């Protein structure tokens, strides 16, 4: 592989390139939309990117780290350290407004703020009202808190009957 000789990277350039790295499980979202890039630091040719996992066991994290490395390498930026930072813990508050719109257009209901499951004694509590990403009806019900990936719950629309993923509010 021929690696172009890169100019000294700037932080702004690195952020631009990170915008082009997508979440492997929700490919319409960039990792910036998702809010998992917590910092970029450039010291000479050395680049340090700090990311945080959405969920502890998220299997996408290793893929994301590899994708970041490959994207920067393609521009000739080879001196890269990727840190994985746990605290402060990721929250859906860090998801960008653009990211939320892209999610809904893709068929995944975006997180409804302020509805995190913080009240464990509220058993069989009322489901979060989630809008169907297909017909936009508010008549939906929770099928399972655990969906196709760790960050999603499984819902169904009572009007158009579409089963859909809901990106859980997490804060």
């Amino acid at each position, binding site marked *: 592989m021929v690696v172009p000789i890169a100019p000294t990277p700037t932080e702004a350039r690195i952020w631009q390139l990170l915008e082009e790295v997508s979440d492997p499980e929700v490919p319409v979202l960039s990792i910036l939309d998702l809010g998992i890039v917590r910092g970029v630091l450039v010291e000479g040719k050395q680049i340090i990117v700090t990311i945080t996992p959405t969920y502890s*066991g998220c299997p996408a994290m*290793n893929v994301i780290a590899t994708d970041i490395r490959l994207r920067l390498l393609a521009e000739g930026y080879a001196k890269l350290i990727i*840190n994985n930072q746990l605290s402060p813990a990721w929250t859906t508050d860090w998801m960008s407004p653009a990211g939320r719109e892209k999610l809904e257009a893709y068929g995944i209901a975006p997180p409804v703020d302020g509805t995190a499951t913080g009240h464990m004694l509220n*058993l069989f509590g009322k489901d979060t009202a989630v809008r169907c990403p297909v017909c936009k009806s508010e008549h939906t019900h929770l099928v399972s*808190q*655990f*969906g196709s990936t760790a960050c999603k719950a499984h819902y169904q629309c009572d009007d158009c009957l579409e089963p859909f993923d809901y990106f859980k509010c997490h804060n």
Partner: protein
Amino acid sequence: MLTQDLSSAKATAAAEPSLLFPYVLQLADTSLILAHRLSEWCGHGPILEQDLALANIALDLLGEARSYYQYAAELEGQGRTEDDLAYLRSAVEYRNPLLVEQPNGDFAHTIVRQFLFDNFHYHLLKTLKNGPDTHLAAIAEKSVKEAAYHLKWSSEWMIRLGDGTDESRQRLDKAIATLWRFAGELTTPTAAETTLQEIGVLPDYATLLAEMQAHTENVFAQATVPLPAPAFAQLGGKTGRHSEHLGYLLSELQYMQRTYPGLTW
């Protein structure tokens, strides 16, 4: 392999590494062994949604275990990695409580085991996230959000099964009768835990027990199941004296590394 960076998190250990190491390892083993048990359900759940729930919970616990193993490896400072700690220790070196190594049994059995664990786990993480050891606090801050979902899930299933059909009730009763004796070990401190409690790294388990008890009473009342009398607590796992089940579990879990030493993906 993506590992955590300790320096950028400005981690400060709240105790001598040699005191913390066995406890962090105990947390790691506990989450790993339960994650493995839950993963055995994959493809065998009673319905698709619950199969997914079990696999999701397994994945959360596995991620949590990795964080603890990475921290334990760092504390030990002998060059062992998270993989060495998980794959190359024998059953007598494992420090998980007996509860989490118990076989899955039927769905009710798995739910009771999960409820007993989640109730402890959630309340423990809630205090650890405000604890003085910043690295443990960071892991707890991350994992407590997930543990909250787990506890809600297992609590609701306790109620459904207890207040469900004659058969579900019978199976739940049987599971409670079998597993209740293993609950006490979770909150019976080992010598290492007692030391950490004395220097304020770990909470006093009496406070934890009061919160756990309140939640248990609430769930059992809704499940219409009478609370079992306090039982003799079967101890052993946290000090390396395990039931026969752990050896079989590890032989599957560690098979690849034992057969092909040093294998990587």
